[in-house]
């Protein structure tokens, strides 16, 4: 559906370096990365707003590298929604139809349908300056889909919205992706959005594509330390495989010894990734590591307590505030942690 073939692009001092990625029809594809990494540039390149210095861009199997944006049939929604401030809601939504030459009454019927579909019929004659963030967002989405693109590009569409409005918007987006079969490419810096929505994803750091693939795999079993750190894995530990035992590897991490599932032979340096909620107080099951340590610090963050435990290396465990209180966890208290071997992701580099 969308293919970037070794695309390089310079914009001022910014460089997008040899990015290749494939987005399939019907994907809900996420592009994530730190701010300034070039995520928006990729979206705009797909839309035809930047021309690559090198490489090709293909849409629906055809090369479109030198096709102007108005001929590419992709919808684009920016973070600020970019409504035309000098047009009413109805004129904003009908804009695409008008410039593409659709006649008055047909266009009116289309727009009326969209107003109903997005629940904004009551806003029809208002101007963007008077709308709330959530209302703007629905108008922007209706405007983008009015011209029936089969690809929708979203640039951090949720970041300017309050939580309730976010939920509603997420619902709308899921409907467009699943029911209407739109291919959606979304840029975000929110891991939560990725977890909720992504089927596939790419991680861009400093203009380079670090990793691409199934969202679950990238999030839970990243192939590099940078990506692991970026997707928010709390415990990233460098170690060495000291021996192999029954299909498992025994890894030494600065004194702490953990069993993990990997093919790495003894002597290989590996990086272990453990999510904080996979480290729990208590004794482990069959395939579990049991680790003794002393609580260094308990930081409460909303309903969760992040417990830092010194086990030779410092591990971060997450539990509910209530659980942390029930266990009377406080700095200096000894604690036993259990970590399932299967919950440890091993990066071989």
């Amino acid at each position, binding site marked *: 559906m969308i293919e970037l073939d070794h695309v390089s692009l310079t914009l001022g001092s910014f460089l997008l370096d040899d990015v290749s990625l494939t987005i399939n029809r019907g994907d809900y594809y996420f592009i994530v990365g730190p701010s300034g990494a070039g995520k928006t540039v990729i979206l705009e390149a797909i839309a035809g707003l930047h021309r690559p210095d090198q490489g090709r861009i293909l849409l629906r199997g055809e090369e479109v590298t030198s096709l102007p944006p108005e001929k590419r049939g992709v919808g684009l929604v920016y973070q600020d929604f970019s409504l035309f401030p000098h047009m009413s809601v109805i004129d904003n939504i009908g804009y695409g139809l008008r410039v593409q030459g659709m006649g008055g009454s047909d266009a009116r019927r289309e727009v009326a349908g969209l107003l109903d579909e997005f629940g904004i019929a009551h806003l029809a004659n208002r101007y963007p300056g008077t709308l709330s963030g959530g209302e703007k967002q629905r108008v922007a989405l209706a405007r*983008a889909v009015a011209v029936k693109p089969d690809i929708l590009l979203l640039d951090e569409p949720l970041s300017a919205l309050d939580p309730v409005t976010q939920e509603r918007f997420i619902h709308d987006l899921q409907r467009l992706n699943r029911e209407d079969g739109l291919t959606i490419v979304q840029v975000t810096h929110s891991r939560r959005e990725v977890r909720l929505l992504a089927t596939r994803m790419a991680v861009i750091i400093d203009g380079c594509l670090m990793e691409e693939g199934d969202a679950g795999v990238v999030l839970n079993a990243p192939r590099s330390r940078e990506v692991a750190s970026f997707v928010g894995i709390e415990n990233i530990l460098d170690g060495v495989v000291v021996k192999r035992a029954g299909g498992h590897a025994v890894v030494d991490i600065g004194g702490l010894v953990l069993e993990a599932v990997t093919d790495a032979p003894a002597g290989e340096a590996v990086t272990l990734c453990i999510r904080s909620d996979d480290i729990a107080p208590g004794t482990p099951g069959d395939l579990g590591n049991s680790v003794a340590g002393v609580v260094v610090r308990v930081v409460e963050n909303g309903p969760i307590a992040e417990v830092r435990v010194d086990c030779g290396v410092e591990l971060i465990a997450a539990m509910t505030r209530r659980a942390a209180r029930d266990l009377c966890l406080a700095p200096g208290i000894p604690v036993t942690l259990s970590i399932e071997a299967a919950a440890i992701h091993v990066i071989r580099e």
Partner: protein
Amino acid sequence: MDIKAGGPSSDKGQWRRLWYTDRCMLWFCIMGAAIVGITVLALANIALTELADPVHLLEIAASSEVIGSILLTFGAGANAVLILVLFGTPLAYVLARSRPSRLKGLVESIVDVPLILPHTVAGLLVYLLFMRRGWLGAPLSEIGLAFEDAYPGTVVAMLFVASPFFINTMREGFEKVPIHLENVARTLGAGTFTTFRTVTLPLSLRHMFNGAIFAWGRAIGEFAAVIMIAYYPFIISTLIYYSFATEGIRTSRSIAFVVIVVSLGVFYILRRLTRYLGRYDDRA
């Protein structure tokens, strides 16, 4: 929060408070008043003198020479601005949307040249180019368009000196239109010109009018550049200079007062009109 701290905190009683709390700002106000004072005194001076002899003033104001000259000046200025809007707007858009480069820097400098040159030099440049034997004057006089001591000469001199004012203001307006709006319009199927016509230009109308007013003000005020190429027909400036040089203060002062009243009035009306133009943020 876009609240300014630090300044005097409320309008009412602001000046009384200054004396007690902030003598520095008070001194600044007094020094500033010296600059503003020159203009105020100058206006008061002419107003008091002229209003003391309303009969003579009305006689001057009603004279066909003065009225004709005012109309000619305003008309020629409007004509110059119209040409500027037509040709300067595309230039301003190109400058606003192209990336920095040597060529762009050069074009920007060329646009600003009329700002830098002494007015008689600007006038001489226009004269040399548009005189009967000039590079542009010669071919144009063949098709019957004469510039020397003629209306087209007045217009072209005004156009030359006023052009940076319009182009720079218009360009600023274009730069303020979020590129995202244009990008969205493009993805919705609008070509470059359609996007320009339906999105960029409507959102820059305010700057366009302000730039046009600014340029018009510069155009109708010009004297040096105009007299080099077209001493006749008399524009206001020339008329005042001529009557100052030949008839002395009295007549020229009356003409000047009429011009001041008309100019300030016209600008006041134009500013009021544009105040409500292109303000989308607070539309109901």
